């Protein structure tokens, strides 16, 4: 019996749990876009795993009707890595905030990227620590007053696109939570991409960054033109530099597939098996004097 082509609606990816998010939080948009993307991809919910750290945004897996794990702060990436290596046939998505991903969890990013683990990472970047009520995050703009920068933030914010390029991520995009349609496209492309895909998503925190962000962003965000060569790293690096007009390109900055970790590891398994002695008893016999 053939399966009908569209069996999953976006609501099939939604749980009953009511989000703890503030009304107007950008994360609602990301959640909705993700559910839509999954429906578009028609991946059976039981074949998906979501991993997150801690933060408002990291509550995400609880609201998504797939296997999910809202774990500890900063460790979404290694958790997802382990899960994907264990079960390469399943779809793995890591989600979380700018603090979770670029501060406490920042040390894991280079390695998931250079190993090209085939998973998708959605960062809800709100330039603040939401859950802990408003401290500076690594993406908080210079000069901003937050609970931990009472005299103005003096650090230069991180540039997630530059990070991802330096890490040799094979798919790098930026989205905006209020551009639902575009965001759905990006998430679909990211999940489809074989290898590590990061989507940095501007997702305003209305409570601790005010909601004028929505207003200004509307005019600042623009889609990356078709003419941009997605396989040109230097061009992508250039595109992601801070601009004099403060505008923010959204879309795919870079995409250049290469063999994934899992493909490479299959080769290693083959190599390892070449001796032909692949039973535990064979291995044990190596200890005989």
């Amino acid at each position, binding site marked *: 019996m053939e399966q009908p082509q569209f069996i999953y609606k976006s609501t099939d990816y939604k749980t009953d749990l009511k989000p703890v998010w503030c009304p107007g939080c950008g994360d609602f948009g990301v959640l909705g876009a993700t559910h839509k993307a999954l429906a578009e991809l028609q991946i059976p919910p039981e074949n998906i795993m979501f991993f997150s750290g801690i933060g408002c945004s990291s509550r995400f897996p609880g609201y998504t009707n797939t296997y999910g794990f809202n*774990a500890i702060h900063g460790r979404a990436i290694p958790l997802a890595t382990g899960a994907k290596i264990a079960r390469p046939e399943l779809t793995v998505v890591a989600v979380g905030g700018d603090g979770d991903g670029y501060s406490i969890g920042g040390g894991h990013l280079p390695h998931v990227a250079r190993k090209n683990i085939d998973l998708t990472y959605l960062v809800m970047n709100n330039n603040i620590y939401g859950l802990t009520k408003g401290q500076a995050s690594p993406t908080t703009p210079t000069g901003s007053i937050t609970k931990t920068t009472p005299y103005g933030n003096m650090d230069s914010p991180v540039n997630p696109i530059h990070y991802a390029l330096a890490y040799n991520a094979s798919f790098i995009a930026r989205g905006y939570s209020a551009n639902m349609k575009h965001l759905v496209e990006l998430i679909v492309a990211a999940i489809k991409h074989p290898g590590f895909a990061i989507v940095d998503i501007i997702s305003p925190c209305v409570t601790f960054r005010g909601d004028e962000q929505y207003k200004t962003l509307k005019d600042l965000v623009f889609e990356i033109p078709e003419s941009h060569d997605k396989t040109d790293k230097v061009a992508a690096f250039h595109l992601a530099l801070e601009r004099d007009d403060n505008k923010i390109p959204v879309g795919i900055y870079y995409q250049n597939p290469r063999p994934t970790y899992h493909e490479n590891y299959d080769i290693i398994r083959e190599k390892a098996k070449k001796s032909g002695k692949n039973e535990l008893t064979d291995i044990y016999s190596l200890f005989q004097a």
Partner: protein
Amino acid sequence: MKTTNDFILTIIGSGGDGVISAGEILLSAAASEGLFGFLLKSFGPQIRGGESSIKLRISNEEIFTQGDFVQVLLVFNWGDFPRFKTEYDLSDGAIIISDSDDKLSPLSQNLPWDEKKLVNIQIPITRLTKELTGSTFNKNIFSLGLLSAMFNLPSEGLHKAIKRKFKKKSEDVLKSNIDALEAGIKWISENNLNQNDFRFEYDSVEEPKIIMNGNDSISLGAMYQGLEFYASYPITPASEILQFLGTHLPKIGGSVIQAEDELAAINMAIGASFAGKKSMTGTSGPGISLKAEAIGLASMAEIPLVIVNVQRGGPSTGLPTKFEQSDLLQAMYVTHGDAPKAVIAATSVEDSYVCANIAFQIAEKYQLPVILLSDQFISAREVSLRPFKLNKFEVISRLKPEDNESDYKRYKITENGVSPMAIPGQKGVIYQTNGLEHTSTGMPSSDLDIHKKMSEKRDLKLQHIAKEFDFVVQKDCDGAKIGVITWGSSKGAVLEAVAKLKKEGKKVSFMAPQLISPLPIHKIQPFMDKLDRLIILEMSFGKQFYTHLKSQLKLPEDVVVYNRAGGKPFSVTEVYNTISKNYVGEAE
């Protein structure tokens, strides 16, 4: 001429002297002849090319330690000797062999020549090697020949061992080594130097042995239980597990990943276990400290996971290549909150296989993190031991729900605290979990009643584990008024000391619990209750084992704690003296 069936040899030399490989070849020789052996290595601080030494004990009876007193000491270079002076104690009448080509003289060394009646034998080893084999390259093998002939060490075994060792090298290399060995043997008999004290004599031997270290044994145990995922970050003395599994686990389909740090490693393992695979991570003390937070996560989210800690000298970076048993309390209390977990301690190389099996059985059956403690002394020793059966353990896997099970609850309250764990890919039993306190369906909650209920659920498992997996090494001695309790690799020295006391007619009971937490009190308390005096023996300056036992049991009124900072394992004599000094019971 005194002979022995328990031969103890030390070799000391410089970088190029081949000390380590001499030791390994001799161990291999012994094993192939069915002898038991115990090899320890020790190095100076240089990363490469520095001085090194070995201590090798060979016997036709089962042995549990490296032995105390060196009977034969071979020194290539007296300049290297001072570094190791405190590591090796000499036997009365020990035979000191050295290279007469060395410019330093044995007699000018600060050695108890007279007191211990040491025997000085000098042989122009370097010159002879050159003369007889054409180069000085095989000095170590030539010396093995000398030793073999002088002390009746298994020469057939040595031939085999050398062949084994050089089988991947060219024919020439192999031949030159065999020639060197034979040249050494020949030289001794030509010079009639083969009638020495400590000649190795024995009646019968058993079948050939296997040679193994503790890390390999853990790896095999985990593999037998169906390990499918191992993530780790290199660290002495645990790296060999990563290296062994990295080579062999892919052969049976598993995956091994070198993570960017220990935090990543354990979280990868948790992710893999969540995804349905039997998972393990391994490290030493500093790595456990870094895994602290994630251990709590595994406890809270009820993720089956085995965490190996091959202990070394602490605190901090401490003594990375030395032995100590000072991560015991950390194993139990490393993470914040009341976080149930199990702690198991392996007592020997063989026992490491056992403990790895049981660690997985507990982790999978009870869905919690299990810390498996080994240590540098188990992992870095190489022993020749009886081949053991791999399949003496049941392979236990976590409980799973049926697909589409109705009203599936990931954290359903059950009689033993264990609830079926759905595996991603399973239909109709999808769930979301977290490290927050949660309801039986996994929904976050900070309700105090739920917290209470779930705390009970998680704790309940421990009560069942203590009963079901209450394994201890126990040698009750009828009528003994004194007992010794120890843990981990210190078991070996105690075992031999107790046996020695027994031969003298002294009654001493003995115990070493492998299940450290939850402690199987129902087994240990009765053991204690029979005693007038308890000796607690441990290699921790902070008396961690004593602290643990005191907090869990009713100790006898009279407790003697024998403990010290690490660096060097307990000698049998040290333990023997401790027990003798404190002995209570029938006089002979």
